[in-house]
């Protein structure tokens, strides 16, 4: 479960500050996908940044299950991210030196040396997830040997490696054509349900909205609730 409770985020902008997220409250339940839409610069990425503990809010609470991420130090936030959050980036930010298989396995090494005892479990999990995103047989390929859609699939599998409670996805289809994009959205919808994650998904593409469990629209840093509910039935 993720619960943003009256969250406000500002960024320095010259001498003053710009309010990117303005008193937003939002709740995402396990096994559901909440779509977030809105014009460019409306604060969607900032909302995801605060939800994924990459920025702390100026005010408000960011509940990840029973933990208020707004209260955590940077170090504690990093631990929370690797243990409870999955993040899918807009670009498929994979590490160039790593095979697909290792892109997933690295998740077990983020806190330092991983225990050997877990190696088998981790390997099995990585293989299973790669198969789940349709990449069985591509385990050994490095990012430059994969297509854009395949890279995004690795990205999604990586985000799910540590059984996250919350999955955060920022415009996963922007670099893909219509067909690949639709497949990626399908995958996220299916895996969110299978793995019971509370998923927040920013997208430009309105055709996907009907399949989301909820949709919110951001305008100027605020949630425009009036249109938000209606959009689900577009």
């Amino acid at each position: 479960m993720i619960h943003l409770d009256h969250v406000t985020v500002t960024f320095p902008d010259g001498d003053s500050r710009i309010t990117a997220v303005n008193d937003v409250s939002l709740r995402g339940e396990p096994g559901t996908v909440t779509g977030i839409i809105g014009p460019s610069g409306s604060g969607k990425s900032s909302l995801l940044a605060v939800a994924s503990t990459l920025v702390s809010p100026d005010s408000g609470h960011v509940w990840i299950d029973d933990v208020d991420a707004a209260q955590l130090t940077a170090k504690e936030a990093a631990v929370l991210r690797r243990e409870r959050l999955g993040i899918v980036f807009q670009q498929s930010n994979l590490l160039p030196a790593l095979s697909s298989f290792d892109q997933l396995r690295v998740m077990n090494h983020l806190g330092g040396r991983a225990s050997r005892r877990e190696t088998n479990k981790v390997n099995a999990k990585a293989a299973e997830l790669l198969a789940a995103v349709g990449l069985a047989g591509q385990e050994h390929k490095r990012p430059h040997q994969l297509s854009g859609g395949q890279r995004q699939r690795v990205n999604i599998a990586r985000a799910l490696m540590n059984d996250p409670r919350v999955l955060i996805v920022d415009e996963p289809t922007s670099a893909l054509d219509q067909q690949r994009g639709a497949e990626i959205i399908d995958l996220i919808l299916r895996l969110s349900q299978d793995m019971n994650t509370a998923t927040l998904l920013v997208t430009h593409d309105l055709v996907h909205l009907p399949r989301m469990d909820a949709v919110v629209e951001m305008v100027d840093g605020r949630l425009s609730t009036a249109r938000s509910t209606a959009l689900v039935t577009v």
Partner: protein
Amino acid sequence: MFVAWRELNFARGRFALLASVVAMLMVLVGFLSGLAAGLASQNVSSVLGFKADQIVFAKPADGQKLSLSESAVTREQFDTWVSASGVDAVRPLSVQQSKMSSPDASTTVALMSSTRGKGTPVPSDDSSVSVSQTAADELGVAVGDRVTISGSDFKVAAITDDAWFSHTPAVWLSRDGWLKVDRSGEFANVFLVNGSADWEAVNTSASTQSASTLGSLSAIGSFTSEAGSLGMMVALLFAISALVLSAFFTVWTMQRSADIAVLKALGSSTRALLIDSLGQALVVLTAGIGVGLALVLGFGALAGQVLPFVISPFTTLLPALVMGVLGLAGVAFALKSITKANPLSALGGNR
């Protein structure tokens, strides 16, 4: 080290290049250290062998530095030192460079005379000499052979371990034997003193000036300038290797700053990232230094036959260790950007 090893493999060309640079620097450092130690040993090894607690010089004129070959001490000063309380032994030492010949060859040697003691293997009669190994080799003489010094004949009574003074091999004469070849007419150049006395007080009453053995090395020929210039080259090479490593890892870390941001966004601890990068650097350093050391040992064994070259832990392991530590320090300096990398930049919209 999960990511670090895979990067090493992925960018192995670049890392191999860096390791070869480190190896070459290590070769240079090793050669210069070995050479510096070799030259130093050819300069001062006999003096180090005396195991004297103090070496006593005549007080130099104002503004002059101590110089072993120019110092001249007197019989009276000798008596003062001998009778000083706390002084256990005083050996007068005379040194001069001279030509020594055998029937087949001739070479320049450091003639030394003293009374018998540690590092002063003086022969027992005035017509014998003790010849150090290198001098014996150069002249092709063995025990019992005859040699000529300044027109006087001597018998080779013993061949001793290598000992050097001012880049010439040492040859020992008794005090009486010395009188046959001495050109200076002085009592001795310096005293080798053992014991534990109030050195200051004795120096004052004898109008001498003394120093420990190590402190006296600067009074020997070109020791200071040799050790200084070679030492400076070695220090420069250390600095260069630290800078090269620092520069490489600065660029390397910058190149993958996006990756670092991603790893941080995924929840990597900064500590783990730093350890990873330092580990990576350590692998490169170890490989480079290891290869460099192997080359130094290999070529050093060859060079040792024609050059004054010393292979010892002091000229190999120590510089290697210093190089490793300074290299890591240089790398650590380059890793600031890891601590600073902002995971926020990994999220799509802000790139």
